[in-house]
């Protein structure tokens, strides 16, 4: 573990310091192009540290800095997830804020606040996965609520205020329950014979897990599932999620859906290892299965008649978190490896889709599914990436979610949870039909007649017409040089990158398989 020496320290400190520096720059000089790119650079640093940490920890070793920071293979996977999603989200964020400024949706102060808060959000999530102390893990997840509050309310107006208030109150209460659970874990650790001081250090707790009091741990784990489940968007405390995801700026929705939910699930994975050793595993499994299946059922029922495409994506996040927690309920190494791959795949696909939906919103001016019709004919590149993103999200090959869902199903069947798998598959089928039909309507549906200017019927030449209209709009609203197609190409680049990575991950196992296997040994139990 000391083989890397100074490099190991750098790998753990760099992903924390880089976003803090980027945030500091935004606080000093406000929103500039360079500041926006510094957030992208910070995301790249997080991703690179994740890769380096993965190289160092795949053989089962651990990097540590003092008592506070620690990275094993599971941490490395999460760093890669955070870095990967953050690169796509911050990259799209550059153009997104410029667009918002040009359209007058936000002012220089709002843009500056965005530039400060997004890197802080990243730093808090990185600290959460690097913390060796479960109390620090809790405090940093709580901190994400604080920094994202004003990001959710970025646009202002009645809906944004409503979404922010619900988000802050519900998540704070949920996370407070997780704190109570943490306190109870500490209490039982004080009376487990590891010395009267007790500990919240994960390694120490795992080593002494079989001596923790089952009575106290049962109450504690239930509170932790409820508390971190709130942040992960699990039923029954999920109601903040669709509101917050639909109101937040697109890149922030991408980060919240792709990473924040997964970081909360990561906390549950860490606690699950302790709980399985301290309690009877059946209790842990039933608790997680209940949360998973009810979340899946709720998401499926809300998706059927959904009218708003950002809320559609939000409920799909609840569905995917349900699947991931189903994997945690199974808990075998295969299931854990599959759920980690699923977290990565979902994060990338969701960031592509949310950032794409932000551009659709900017073009169409509505978040109603019925307001967006025939997008593929009018905006082939943007609509194409959105369609591929939906395909990835629905688990179609060659994207990696196909592989991870298959592996999850196999793991559940191997563990004798065939009935839960059957319920989940039926619900997934409902979700598939719902999302596919809504998506098809947006992409292929007949373009609404109102968008056609007088004298040019939509049947004659829809593409040039739409382009002409939007270029007139751009000329009058924005600057004369900023032509629509150029903006689309720049905006689509991060999305295409995300899709390409997803496809590669779905086709070739290398280089992730070793890492996932190592992580699965840490968080999985036979």
């Amino acid at each position: 573990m000391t083989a890397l020496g100074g490099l190991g320290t750098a790998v753990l400190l760099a992903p924390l310091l880089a976003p803090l520096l980027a945030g500091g720059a935004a606080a000093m000089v406000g929103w500039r192009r360079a500041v926006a790119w510094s957030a992208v650079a910070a995301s790249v640093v997080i991703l690179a540290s994740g890769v380096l940490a993965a190289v160092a920890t795949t053989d089962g070793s651990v990097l540590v800095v003092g008592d506070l920071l620690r990275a094993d293979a599971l941490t490395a996977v999460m760093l890669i997830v955070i870095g990967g999603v953050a690169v796509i989200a911050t990259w799209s964020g550059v153009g997104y804020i410029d667009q918002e400024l040009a359209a007058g949706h936000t002012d220089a102060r709002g843009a500056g606040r965005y530039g400060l808060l997004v890197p802080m959000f990243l730093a808090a999530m990185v600290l959460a996965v690097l913390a060796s102390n479960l109390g620090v893990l809790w405090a940093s997840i709580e901190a994400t609520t604080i920094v994202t509050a004003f990001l959710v309310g970025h646009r202002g107006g009645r809906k944004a205020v409503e979404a922010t208030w619900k988000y802050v109150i519900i998540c704070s209460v949920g996370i407070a329950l997780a704190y109570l659970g943490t306190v109870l874990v500490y209490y039982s650790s004080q009376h487990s014979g590891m010395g009267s001081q007790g500990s919240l250090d994960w390694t120490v707790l795992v080593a002494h897990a079989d001596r923790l009091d089952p009575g106290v741990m049962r109450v504690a784990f239930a509170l932790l599932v409820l508390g971190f489940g709130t942040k992960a968007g699990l039923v029954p405390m999920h109601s903040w999620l669709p509101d917050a995801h639909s109101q937040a700026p697109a890149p922030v929705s991408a980060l919240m859906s792709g990473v924040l939910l997964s970081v909360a699930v990561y906390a549950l994975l860490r606690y699950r290892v302790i709980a399985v050793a301290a309690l009877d595993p059946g209790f842990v499994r039933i608790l997680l299965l209940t949360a998973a299946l009810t979340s899946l059922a709720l998401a499926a029922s809300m998706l059927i008649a959904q009218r708003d495409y950002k809320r559609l994506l939000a409920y799909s996040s609840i569905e995917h978190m349900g699947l991931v927690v189903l994997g945690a309920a199974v808990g075998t190494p295969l299931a854990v490896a599959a759920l980690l791959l699923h977290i990565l795949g979902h994060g990338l696909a969701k960031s592509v889709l949310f950032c794409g939906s932000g551009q659709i919103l900017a073009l169409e001016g509505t978040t109603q599914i019925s307001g967006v019709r025939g997008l593929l004919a009018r905006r082939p590149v943007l609509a194409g990436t959105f369609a591929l993103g939906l395909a990835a999200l629905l688990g179609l090959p060659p994207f990696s979610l196909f592989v991870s869902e298959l592996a999850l199903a196999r793991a559940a069947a191997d563990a004798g949870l065939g009935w839960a798998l059957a319920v989940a598959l039926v619900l997934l089928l409902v979700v598939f039909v719902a999302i596919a039909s809504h998506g098809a309507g947006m992409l292929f549906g007949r373009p609404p007649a109102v968008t056609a200017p007088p004298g040019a019927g939509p049947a004659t030449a829809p593409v040039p017409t739409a382009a002409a209209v939007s270029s007139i709009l751009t000329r009058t609203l924005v600057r004369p040089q900023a032509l629509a197609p150029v903006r689309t190409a720049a905006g689509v680049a991060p999305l295409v990158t995300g899709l390409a990575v997803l496809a590669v991950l779905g086709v070739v196992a290398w280089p992730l398989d070793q890492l996932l296997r190592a992580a699965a040994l840490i968080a999985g139990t036979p």
Partner: protein
Amino acid sequence: MSDGVFVQILDLVCGGLLLSGVLMLWRRELVAIVRLLVVQGVLLAALAVLLGVREQSVELYLVAVGVLILKAVVLPGVLHRVLRDSGDAREAAPLVNVTSSLLAAALLTLVAYAVSGPLVALAPSATTRALPVGLAVVLLGFFVLVTRRHALSQVVGFLLLDNGIAATAFLATSGVPLVVELGGSLDLLLLVLVLQVLAARMRLTFGRTDMDELQELRD
């Protein structure tokens, strides 16, 4: 301090915590409710001092000072400012009337005693036997959160819940590790400041600070 005196003072402080929680359900004037929060902050600090004397720990004295400043001075101060700006001083129409609220408080206290059975059984002592009080305050906070409609009442409910958790932490473990305590307190302070700004925005956009206005985001 002899054991007898310690137990008496401990029970007095815990009784005060529970009583002030119940009184918050009874009162509808927001000024009075915020004053009760100050009382709870002082009692929590007293609890920390009491445990500090018992365990002869300087750390707990420092924590007590921090708790006193945060929960008895700063947070109620912020709430007072929100109250002064918003103008309306009463919880207009709680979903559950006062009589039923007090009955619910009694029921929730019983639930807290039932749930904390295994917690007390792990290490029976004078302090852990008072654990149900902490959990009862948590449940009371939850109750305030779901039944009150004023934005400020919801913040109060959250703070009540947090006080209950702090009391549980002191009673069960004599406080969590210092780094966690610091992180938690900082988060709490920032959270209440965020809520203050949000309440101001709510007043600007809706004209009042009432949850009934928050009805636009639905499926």
